[in-house]
């Protein structure tokens, strides 16, 4: 059974990159590649997003912003690092104010290599990200099922028992 119930929405942020990968991310949304036909929508609001597409090696000033966007996204969420500089720091790895790679700022699930990453590669990354999202949603669903079970087998009988005892008094 698929645990993904709705089309995945993504939020995109430029975490100190050169912009090359950012325009390729946007190119994915436009007629030649057109990921919107799969229901993937680029949203501006992190609170609506399931997937965080992020580029760049993050500098000191951008670090809190990247973290904040990540924290604002509801669970389950997937982070896709797009481009060589988001994966490892890339050409900017020894710049003085770059932390060198997105995974030093937030947990990354999928890495898309390339400088600049090609739209095909980005779409491939998103598809891989969907598998991760599915796993994470499954984990959340299993937890929810367990909680439900617990409610049925432990919580409700206890409450019923208490009520009976109250009534007897």
């Amino acid at each position, binding site marked *: 059974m698929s645990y993904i119930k709705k089309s995945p929405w993504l939020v995109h942020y430029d975490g100190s990159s050169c912009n*090359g990968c950012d325009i390729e991310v946007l190119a994915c949304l*436009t007629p030649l590649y057109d990921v919107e036909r799969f229901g993937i929508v680029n949203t501006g609001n992190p609170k609506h997003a399931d997937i965080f597409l992020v580029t760049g090696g993050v500098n000191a000033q951008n670090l809190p*912003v990247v973290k904040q966007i990540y924290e604002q996204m509801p669970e389950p969420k997937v982070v896709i690092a797009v481009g060589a500089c988001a994966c490892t720091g890339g050409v900017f790895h020894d710049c003085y*104010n770059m932390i060198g790679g997105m995974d030093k700022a937030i947990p990354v699930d999928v890495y898309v290599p390339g400088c600049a990453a*090609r739209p095909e590669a980005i779409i491939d990354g998103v598809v891989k990200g969907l598998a991760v999202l599915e796993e994470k949603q499954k984990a959340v669903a299993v937890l929810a099922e367990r909680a439900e079970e617990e409610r049925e087998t432990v919580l409700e009988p206890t409450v019923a028992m208490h009520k009976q005892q109250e009534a007897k008094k």
Partner: protein
Amino acid sequence: MGKSTVVPFGPQHPVLPEPIHLDLELQDEKVVKAIPSIGYIHRGLEKLVEKRGFQEYVYIAERVCGICSFGHGWGYSKAIEGLMEIEVPRRAEYLRTIWHELSRLHSHLLWVGLGADALGFESLFMHAWRLRETILDMIEQTTGGRVIFSVCKVGGVRRDISDHDLKEIVSRLEKLKKEIDGLTALILNDETIHARLKGVGTVSFEDAKALGCVGPTARASGVPLDYRCGDEGGAYKELGFKPVTDTAGDCFARCKVRLLELYQAIDLIKGCVENMPAGEIAVPVKGFPPAAEYFTRVEQPRGEAVYYVKGNKTKNLERFRLRTPTNANLAVLVKMLQGCDLADVPNIILTIDPCISCCER
């Protein structure tokens, strides 16, 4: 008049592909003051010349910005060539001009799309980006890359374009021109676009000059500032070149200037193909940059970019400095935002065509 409120705009904002932060001080719906703060994409690329060899640095220069990447590679190479007194073959200059104008086409079409998106005209965004893909195809066919080409090097270019490919570029541009006609007619005659852009964010000729704005932003206010008509390399001098200008200085004028520049770029590429000289595409580079300095300019899609280099007889340069067009245009942006409506803020920001990665390096 009520109390003023401060609305933060950015760094993460749907209309901005790149992070910049503005504090907008509002009185009701009117912006009374806009305070920009930058630094979200500062990577310290200028400092990197101390760690990379001067020939290797061309790749870094290209990654200053992914949209005008070729121009930055060219500007840096040109500065080094000037410093080391290297004579670049004519054919290489013509090839560089072709690639530079192709980047201008893709950059302007990209801008049309983003500008339309800021207006809420989503289908125009899609349309413009569809046209842009044909340019990217040509770039990919001739260089192998889509946004970062890496064909420019110190002393010339890395790849030649065959006669067959040159002819194909011209025939494809002819076709594209017809489609751009449709796009231009749509934008210049659409009531809604007129209502949103005309008379909004106006910059007078005097302000444009005093605040030092560059590129299409300056040209839309009647300042005929375009370094392609100067003595700044490439094939522009031989092709004869006149900058596109307008006098209104509002968002609509800036839009119009960019649209007309699309046609101009197509004509320039055709001129290059017709007059393409034969010969070498690069000369070998020997030795290290001397202990001297050099300064040059390139007209990027967004305006004039200034390159300064200083050598010290070693493999690494001592200093590289780059002043980018967005940097120059931020001052005028702050001026434009004073007194505008909150709803017009995205339009106004987009019409200076901000490129924050360039601006902060």
